């Protein structure tokens, strides 16, 4: 079987087959060859794809299906994978609970946060890539260290820090916090992109009379644009999804609550109304899923390159 495959790459040559048959291990080897034959592997891989797609997509689709039921259908026989009819009443419940406010808040925090992160991390990444100064390595090490330490750890002291600065229960406080927390990772990723741009571009710009800011603005920004896009997408996902910091900073200030907090509070209130909880979940994940489906190529690129850089 193996030998008939044009793309065969694991098989043994035909002429040795008869000799092999005499050896005790030959049947085992045959079996191994069948198992590792391209056609068998292809089939196994297809099965794996199918199982993976079901495992990773089914929960999300089930939540969509559950959210679209008429009231009571989720708890009646016979069990239905799909709703008997589409009903949007669960969504009405979520809208009445104030989902529009949560979405606006999340959007504002995400835009301001990501903008702030880029504004701070692009110049810093430039500096780490283009300047030689004492303590550069040490400083970069510290930046990396902060990247590794989870923000969850600092939520307890953060409460007092934010309180002292008068930033508790404010949107500005949350945005500043996100910029502070996400900058290390962004600098690290961006520095990698800056490092790939040859210094000759800087020298040429210098000769043409550009100062460093102009060099960054007019010469370097274009080659590092893919990096900026990746950092932007990444931080959009992180900021939009973030929960514990927002919960700690915004506390009970419900008019500032983001989507994660809103949905969490909503499910606390609605207890066992799975239909309503499903609808709230769908609204909470839909914006990111749409953004992601559009941009997943850049996303993966950033991840693969990010994993290279640390």
């Amino acid at each position, binding site marked *: 079987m193996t030998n008939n495959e044009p793309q065969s790459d694991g098989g043994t040559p035909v002429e040795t087959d008869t000799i092999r048959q005499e050896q005790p291990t030959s049947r085992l080897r045959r079996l*191994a060859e069948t198992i590792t034959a*391209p056609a068998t592997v292809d089939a196994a891989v297809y099965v794996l794809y199918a199982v993976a797609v079901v495992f990773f997509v089914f929960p999300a689709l089930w939540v969509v299906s559950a959210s679209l039921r008429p009231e009571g259908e989720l708890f009646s026989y016979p069990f239905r994978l799909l709703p008997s009819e589409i009903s949007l009443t669960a969504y009405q419940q979520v809208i009445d609970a104030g989902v529009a406010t949560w979405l606006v808040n999340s959007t504002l925090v995400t835009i301001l946060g990501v903008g702030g992160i880029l504004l701070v991390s692009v110049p810093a990444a430039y500096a780490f890539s283009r300047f030689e100064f004492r303590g550069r390595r040490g400083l970069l090490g510290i930046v990396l260290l902060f990247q590794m330490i989870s923000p969850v750890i600092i939520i307890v002291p953060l409460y007092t820090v934010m309180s002292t600065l008068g930033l508790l229960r404010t949107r500005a406080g949350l945005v500043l916090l996100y910029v502070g927390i996400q900058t290390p990772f962004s600098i690290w990723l961006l520095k990698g992109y800056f490092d790939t741009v040859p210094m000759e571009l800087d020298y040429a710009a210098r000769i043409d009379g550009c100062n460093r800011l102009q060099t960054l603005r007019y010469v370097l920004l274009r080659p590092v644009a893919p990096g900026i896009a990746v950092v932007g997408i990444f931080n959009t996902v992180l900021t939009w999804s973030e929960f514990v910091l927002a919960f700690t900073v915004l506390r009970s200030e419900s008019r500032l609550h983001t989507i994660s907090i809103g949905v969490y509070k909503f499910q606390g209130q609605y207890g066992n109304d799975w239909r309503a909880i499903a609808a709230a979940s769908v609204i909470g994940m839909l914006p990111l899923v749409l953004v992601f489906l559009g941009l997943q190529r850049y996303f993966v690129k950033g991840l693969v390159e990010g994993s290279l850089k640390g």
Partner: protein
Amino acid sequence: MTTPDSTTDRSFARLRAVGRRLLDHPLPWLAPTLVLLAVFQLYPMVEAVLMSFTNESLVSPDTEFVGIEQYARLATDPQFWEMLRVTAIYAFSSVVLHVLLGLVLALAIDYGVRRGLRGHLTTRVSVLLAWIVPGIIIGLVWKVMLVESQFGAINYLLGLVGVGPVPFRSDPTLALISTIVAGTWRGTAFSMIMIYGGLQRVPQRLYEAARVDGAGRWNRFRHVTLPQLKSVLFVTIVLVTIYALNTFDLIFALTGGGPGRSTQVLALFMYQEAFQDNALGRGASIAVVMLVANLALTAVYLYAFDVSEEI
């Protein structure tokens, strides 16, 4: 003799020169970063350590230095040890499942790309999709999946084969398993991408050399792929461990740490001590335990990755 015009010109030129010199120094470029890191990362970490030596509370205005009392209390608190056990089980299972599944998927996708199989992109997108769903919502999605009557999706499917209904969230052991499964649903993507990136960097000539030597598929995997992936796998394991140790939102939404304390991981325990029992000092001492664990793992990571070269 200068006209007013040329004076402004000259002071303008001087200003520009100053600006230019300023721009030639790294400090202005780094200042915003340094300030933000100092205020929102460094100071809170120092503050956590300081706080852990006090009895600071959200309800009482008097804060006193109490030495290592909080740590002594933790060490003698059976709940703390139980919570450490839960965290360790959660983190260990997460690492095993994420990395194993990630490896298998990365290999399958890499294979599919090379052989031109259909469906590798769909698979990749599906796995990544689960990863970008906000943690709180993942908790709720799985809550809806695991509804504990025959109306829950999983329980219905189990019912078809004559099992159930299974109390996924109210049985202590099953609840922990449920959080691990939900965590795997989210976390596999990261391992998959890391390992996939690693696979792309294995030099093709190594495979060709192995093929010339007559190595079969399994031997090529065993003697070429795995050794080449060693450092990527190690780094992934460390990062997933750190990530799992700090898990909060998913468990907070899925089980809230319950039933009892059966799914209460470090981060949840810390949160509850600090903000539900109002004991900031006690919460801070748990934060320091987490900080030490994170720093230790980071040290391992740095050792493995040898970033010093990169910098």
